[in-house]
Structure formats: C-alpha cells, structure tokens
C-alpha cells in the first residue's frame, strides 16, 4: 500500500485489514486442529474447510471499501495502479506456472499460496508506481 500521512480512509483500511488477519489466524488454528483430531467428513468437512477462507474474502471487501472511501483521487489512482499491477503479475505467474505443471516437472503450486503471492506482487507494483510518481 502507498501510504500518506493523516489519511482517515487508510487508517480505516489498516484497522479493518488487521481485524480480518486476526480472524483468519483465529479460524485457521481451530480448523487445522479439528481436521487433525476429529477428521470431519461430508458437508461438515466442506464447511470447516471454507471457514479460514472467509476472512480472506473479507480482506478483498476491505480493499473495495478503501477504494470507495479514499477521497484523495491521486492516491486512489496510485493504489488502483498498484492493485492492477499485482493482479496482472499474479495472473501471469499462475498461467505460466499452470502450463509448466502440465508439461514439465515443476512442483505443484498450492492454490492457497496465490493470495500471499498476489500481495507480494502488489508490494512490488506499489514500489514501482511510487518511484514513477515521486
């Protein structure tokens, strides 16, 4: 994220994002323990497996809320460029990797890794966008 001082929309974003992260951690640990100790099956297994993903969906909503609430149009423009860069790089990587998985012996990329990879790319993209607009 490109941060500017004294920006209420960014403060709300970081607060909401932190809450979603805490929820993620709070749901992930009991989900893992439930699968290890009780081996749930059927619908219960599906419901439990989806549980830790819900805060991640929440984080995506938090991004949407931030973009809607950011009043500084220049900063909003930079954030959108950074996010688009992150989305584009992530799609490029998973597309290339997918074909490599099909035709070569590269290791399988677990889908849950796509989300942290996306944020890594957003970080790189934000740095480039920021350097270009200093």
């Amino acid at each position, binding site marked *: 994220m490109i941060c*500017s*001082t004294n*920006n209420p929309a960014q403060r709300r974003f970081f607060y909401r994002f932190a809450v979603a992260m805490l929820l993620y951690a709070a749901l992930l640990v009991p989900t893992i323990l439930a699968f290890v100790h009780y081996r749930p099956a059927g619908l219960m297994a599906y419901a439990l497996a989806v549980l830790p993903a819900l805060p991640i969906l929440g984080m995506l909503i938090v991004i949407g809320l931030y973009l809607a609430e950011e*009043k*500084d*149009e*220049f*900063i909003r*423009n930079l954030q959108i460029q950074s996010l688009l860069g992150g989305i584009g790089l992530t799609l490029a990587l998973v597309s290339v990797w997918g074909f490599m998985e099909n035709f070569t012996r590269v290791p399988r990329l677990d889908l849950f890794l796509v989300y942290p990879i996306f944020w890594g790319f957003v970080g790189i993209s934000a740095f480039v966008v920021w350097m270009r*607009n200093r």
Partner: protein
Amino acid sequence: MKNRLRVLRAEREWSQADLAQRLEVSRQSVNAIETGKFDPSLPLAFKLARLFETSIEAIFSDEG
C-alpha cells in the same frame, strides 16, 4: 496538462503542504498536479479555481 499552480501558490506564499491542507488532499497530489503528472478531476479543478478565486481556464491550459 500545463498549469499555473506554482505561480498562484507562490503569490500567496503557500507551500505545497498548505495548499494540500486547503484542498483536503495529500501533498503528493498537489505535487503531481503541479508538475503535470496528474490531471485533477473536474470537482477538484473547481475547488482549486474557487480557492484561488479565478476560473479553471486561468489555472489549466491544454495548449502547448
């Protein structure tokens, strides 16, 4: 887009931060508009014009 923001600001002895505060935007935004890297939206252009008590055309020019 070319603009006279730097001159207008200098006439009032405002820093970029002063102008940013009056416009309720970041200093980076003022700098980006002033250096022509970012064209403001119409609402922000009107806000600038009102602040400097002039017209949008007197601040921004799409020629040259």
